């Protein structure tokens, strides 16, 4: 069925709004989850209440959360309203700019950081098919199918990698524009870090590209899960660990959070940022985490299918529901990887600047090159 221009635009708009809504729900939840997961790991409780004491609305909310504390698992979600409080605080906080900052660049930096992080979602396939059909009474798009992806471009992976590397300009420019010493050091560290980890990250993603012979996100994720030879499990497995580690470095998370190393650089590149401008940096960091998790789960963990690393091919069709792709599998894998981000943050110390570089160049690049060779071998044999 050929869609008219209006229909295409409206459909795209609906999908974009849906994806943005997904991000804006998941990111605050992720900040909340970060508090709780790290709290639980550290034998604390994390956030359990909101300010406002025992009176009024906040008091009622606090009372409910106190009651929730009696039950396992449910008590994890105590303090959930804190993410709203976070948002309100970020939006309403005074926006301070250092006196000698480069005003234009200071503004530009968080936008440069955030826009690519969001734009990447255009090429991510949440589900390789039709999610549902609009009922016919809906104006303009009535009766049309909704795809599980916004676009299905042939060079999707290239687009993602290209855009993702733009984000670092935001960090570097923001650090430079702050006209302050700690941010400057943070920005320089970040630039060096992203350059050295971009290479192994891309190399580890090249293994799936070689295995499938495609750059299309949808084709790759479906084929990697189902259509591989059993030997492909090995490069996928190695590639996953290389990719996820480089992903930690790309998103500036522990153990590679040098750009904002709290104990060294106070707060790194966003030391001088306040209010919503800081919020954008914050948002883009967490959005990048979602992107890295989405890519890892799509290419290495079997994406929308049940089993990771290409094991899905051994699942017989008689398993029924488990043999089919589902959006829920994809989301569960993404959320698990996001949990791993938090888990690792609670466990590991931080690398030093020069050690980080040497790990990148001397360890991950050879590893991913070997992995690439294995992937080529598997492709050649098949």
């Amino acid at each position, binding site marked *: 069925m050929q869609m008219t221009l209006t229909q295409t635009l409206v459909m795209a708009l609906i999908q974009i709004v849906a994806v943005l809504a997904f991000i804006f729900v998941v990111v605050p939840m992720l900040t909340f989850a970060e508090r709780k997961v*790290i709290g639980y*790991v*550290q*034998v*604390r409780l994390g956030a359990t209440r909101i300010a406002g004491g025992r009176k009024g609305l906040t008091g009622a909310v606090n009372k409910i959360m106190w009651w929730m504390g009696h039950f396992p698992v449910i008590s994890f979600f105590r303090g959930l309203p804190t993410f709203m409080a976070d948002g309100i605080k970020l939006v309403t906080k005074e926006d301070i700019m250092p006196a000698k900052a480069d005003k234009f660049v200071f503004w530009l930096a968080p936008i440069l950081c955030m826009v690519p992080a969001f734009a990447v979602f255009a090429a991510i396939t949440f589900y390789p098919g039709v999610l549902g059909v609009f009922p016919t009474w809906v104006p303009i798009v009535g009766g049309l199918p909704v795809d599980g992806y916004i676009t299905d471009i042939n060079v999707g992976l290239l687009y993602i990698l290209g855009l993702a590397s733009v984000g670092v300009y935001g960090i570097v420019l923001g650090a430079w524009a702050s006209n302050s*010493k*700690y941010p*400057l*050091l943070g920005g*320089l*560290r970040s630039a060096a870090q992203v350059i050295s980890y971009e290479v192994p990250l891309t190399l580890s993603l090249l293994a799936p590209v070689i295995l499938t012979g495609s750059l299309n996100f949808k084709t790759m994720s479906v084929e990697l899960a189902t259509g591989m030879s059993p030997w492909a499990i090995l490069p996928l497995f190695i590639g996953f660990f290389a990719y996820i580690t480089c992903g930690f470095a790309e998103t500036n998370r*522990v*153990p590679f*959070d040098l750009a904002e*190393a*709290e*104990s*060294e650089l*106070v707060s790194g590149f966003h030391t001088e940022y306040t209010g919503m401008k800081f919020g954008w940096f914050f948002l883009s960091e967490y959005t990048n985490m979602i992107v890295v998790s989405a890519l890892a789960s799509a290419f290495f963990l079997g994406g929308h299918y049940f089993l990771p690393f290409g094991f899905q091919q051994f699942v017989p069709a008689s398993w029924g529901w488990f043999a089919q792709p589902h959006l829920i599998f994809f989301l569960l894998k993404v959320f698990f990887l996001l949990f791993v981000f938090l888990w690792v*943050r*609670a*466990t*590991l*110390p*931080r*690398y*030093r*600047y*020069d*050690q980080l570089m040497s790990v990148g160049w001397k360890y991950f690049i050879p590893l991913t090159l070997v992995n690439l060779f294995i992937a080529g071998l598997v492709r050649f044999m098949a």
Partner: protein
Amino acid sequence: MFKNEELEINLGPQHPSTHGVLRVKLRLDGETVRHCYPVIGYLHRGVEKICENKTFFQGQVWTDRMDYVAAVSNNLGWAEAIEKLMGISVPRRAKYIRTLLTELNRISSHLLWLGTHAMDIGAMTVFLYAFREREEILDVFESFCGARLTTTAFRIGGLRDDVPPGFEAKVQAFLDRFLPCIDEYEDLLTENRIWKKRTIGVAPISAEECLAMGVTGPVLRAAGVPYDIRKAFPYAAYDEMQFEVPTRMEADTYARYLVRLEEMRQSHRIVQQCLDGMPEGAVMAKLPKILKSEVAEVYHPIEAPKGELGYYLVGEKGGLNPYRFHVRGPSFVNLQALPKMTEGKLLADVIAAIGTLDVVLGEVDR
């Protein structure tokens, strides 16, 4: 063509990892530290001068507030220095209780060091695990003397009170579960490749340099010098205790980490011995109604968790307060080693060096 400019940067006094109000002026070439200059004095209260104007009895509350994470050690040094000055002998039971509390205090001080040092290097969970155990030690202090941090634990001539009922059981319960807790910290750190990379070979200082600058405590022992005042000049009940002085030869941050962990184990041993061999009897010596000093001069060193803590006291005839009082604070002396440890290294190593020196600014500035 290029101008080689150095970046001068202020680390502190308000900085997440300077452990209080230490200010370090750094000149950086990129990330490399070219010059390091610690600036102190932001917490100066004039403890020594104040104590010269207080009676011997009152002075103890000021020693609480010098090294506030090891207040019991400071109390012990003060009490013993004055006992030495006046020739008072303390009952054996009081000595044992003093030793017990001081060793618990060493554990708690090392736990705080471990937590903050690991946090500086980025492992944030160790901090909370260490504080979980430290909390129990502070509970023991609270049950003994009523305060957790500024303990004012001892009195000149012994103790104010005997231990409260249930004290032994409380300490024993802590001892029983403490050793597995050290293993937990070790699980998180000792073999961790990132921790090793961040600490092995970082902030080295040789034994000769240590001795030249008067650096004592775990920093010196990690350089291979088995100098521990508990062994060298025993005080309190340490001459009756069986323990070892852990030393390492590497003289780097990792060695200091291992030495301190081992010291915690040895402290555990000492506390257990105190508990098992606790003698009966009085806890307070017979004292004159008013403490008056003779003309005398004493220097009494004790092994505080950070190193040699020496109290120098001069008494005058019939004086109610010391004529001259001086503290040889281990943090203050050890801090001298910071430039030597960090110059030519990276910025991140400065943080590790500050952490591994274990300075408490209350004692540095006094």
